[in-house]
């Protein structure tokens, strides 16, 4: 065979593999959406779930998922920002920081069940925080932190060194150079990373089963006092999320319409994650253009 033929053949094989992957993904996505979306209605999205009778919704679980997501980001973003800035801009190149990087790497490949059990033992049991939103948010922070930190570090490292020198040569301090020049230029990458992480957190179940718990207590959406037990904002109430709900229905759901609810909830979950991913791209591109092209 001559070079040209080999090239053609290789290309054909690669294209075939890519096509297979795309077909599998499209099939899965299509199946989940087709079997789930017919069950999704405004009523489904807003009413509480029922354990024994048909006609329940996913309102509380949906709220819990978003609330937990926001809490998790509120805790993990500042931490990862600080850690990422330190690692990218200040950390000396020595064994200690190499060790820290290794630890982050290991932490990021920790199975989420393990993170969940760790959270259960430490926060739920040891610190007596019970099955609660806050336990769940802290467990998810552990799950989220390594990736977010890596993302911040990488985004900062992608800003050319010359930009830092430009700041220093103008008599700016390192801190000002980093926060006012480098960070804004790294922002598109950082935001994209956050939104992608948000999708991951949103779909996470294993880490939450034993931390945020598996029960959706009824909450009163007219009571916004976070210290009140029935308030949606209460940090210490157990909070089953959408992903946990899907897992639970499938393993022990006894309501007559369990199958439909599971399908509908899965479709909603997938759509939410899709929205996160697409908006990550859009946001990243928009911001990048705004920062670089003419205003």
């Amino acid at each position, binding site marked *: 065979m001559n070079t040209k033929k080999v090239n053609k053949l290789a290309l054909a094989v690669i294209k075939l593999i890519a096509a297979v992957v795309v077909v599998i993904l499209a099939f899965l996505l299509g199946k989940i959406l087709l079997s789930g979306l017919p069950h999704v209605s405004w009523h489904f999205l807003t009413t509480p779930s029922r354990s024994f009778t048909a006609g329940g919704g996913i309102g509380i679980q949906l709220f819990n998922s978003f609330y937990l997501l926001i809490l998790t980001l509120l805790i993990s973003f500042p931490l990862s920002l600080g850690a990422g800035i330190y690692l990218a801009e200040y950390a000396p190149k020595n064994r200690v920081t190499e060790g820290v990087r290794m630890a982050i790497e290991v932490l990021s490949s920790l199975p989420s069940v393990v993170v969940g059990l760790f959270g259960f033992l430490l926060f739920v049991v040891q610190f007596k925080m019970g099955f609660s939103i806050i336990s769940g948010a802290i467990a998810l922070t552990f799950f989220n932190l390594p990736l977010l930190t890596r993302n911040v570090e990488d985004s900062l490292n992608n800003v*050319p060194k*010359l*930009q830092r*020198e*430009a*700041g*220093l*040569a*103008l*008599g*700016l*301090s390192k801190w*000002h150079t980093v926060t*006012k*020049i480098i960070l*804004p*230029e790294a922002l598109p990458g950082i935001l994209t990373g956050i939104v992608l992480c948000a999708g991951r957190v949103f779909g996470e179940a294993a880490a939450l089963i034993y931390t945020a718990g598996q029960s959706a207590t009824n909450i009163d959406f007219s009571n916004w006092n976070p210290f009140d037990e029935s308030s949606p904002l209460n940090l210490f109430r157990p909070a089953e999320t959408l992903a946990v709900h899907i897992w639970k229905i499938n393993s022990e759901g006894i309501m007559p319409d369990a199958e439909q609810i599971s399908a509908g909830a899965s479709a909603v979950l997938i759509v939410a994650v899709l929205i996160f991913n697409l908006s990550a791209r859009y946001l990243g591109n928009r911001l990048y253009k705004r*920062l*670089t*092209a*003419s*205003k």
Partner: protein
Amino acid sequence: MKAGKYDLNDTSIMNFDKQKQEIALSTHDLQVYYGNKHAFYDGNLQFERYKITALIGASGSGKSTFLRSLNRMNDDVATVTGEIMYRGIDINSKKINLYEMRKQIGMVFQRPNPFSKSIKENITFALKENGIKDKQKLDEIVEKSLRGAALWDEVKDDLNKSALALSGGQQQRLCIARAIAMGPDILLMDEPCSALDPISTLKVEETMHELKKKYTIIIVTHNMQQASRVSDYTAFFHMGHVIEYGKTKDIFTNPKIQATEDYVSGNFG
């Protein structure tokens, strides 16, 4: 010491007459080490005020190393010993306020590195950080420094446009404008034209002729035509040593050292 075919101790370094010429900056026994690597030896150079001094030499000969020592840009990576005297003080001393010093000794880099901000903000950013808030004053400085860098006429209607939309040559002149907006005394330039096309290069060179009325310029260049076109004095670097330092005319037409002669005539190596 002998390395390669030239004797590195065979040097000819010009000294100025302090009665007649004003010295803007001078180095005394400057040595630079990257870890164990001795990258620059025994620098004793004086730079005359309001003149352009070119640093030439093969790649890796230590030009950038020397230049970046002058405003302490290599503090994190290199050890620099010896003195750098500026207005009677040793700015290589630990006690120096680097940030104030760098406002006096500005730098322009090998590649244009404007911030991803508007043209105007590129210039006003550092000024605002230094506490200049008055809008009218800022506008004045913007115009003055853009004129100083011969860029004003090209961008005066687009001051709010992103600096990244400019051409490479315009970006480099913006970086010059940004540097002179700080009101420096000395400008260090490290191959400022190496990433530019010939026309942009000529523009930047023209700018330099204007700039030297107000600033002392030290420029690294690997382009010998450029050195002979723009500079008053030239220092020839070889393997971390300054081999010859003198009037540009003498360096190019009547060098005292064999290595210099070989280098400027292209027989080097």
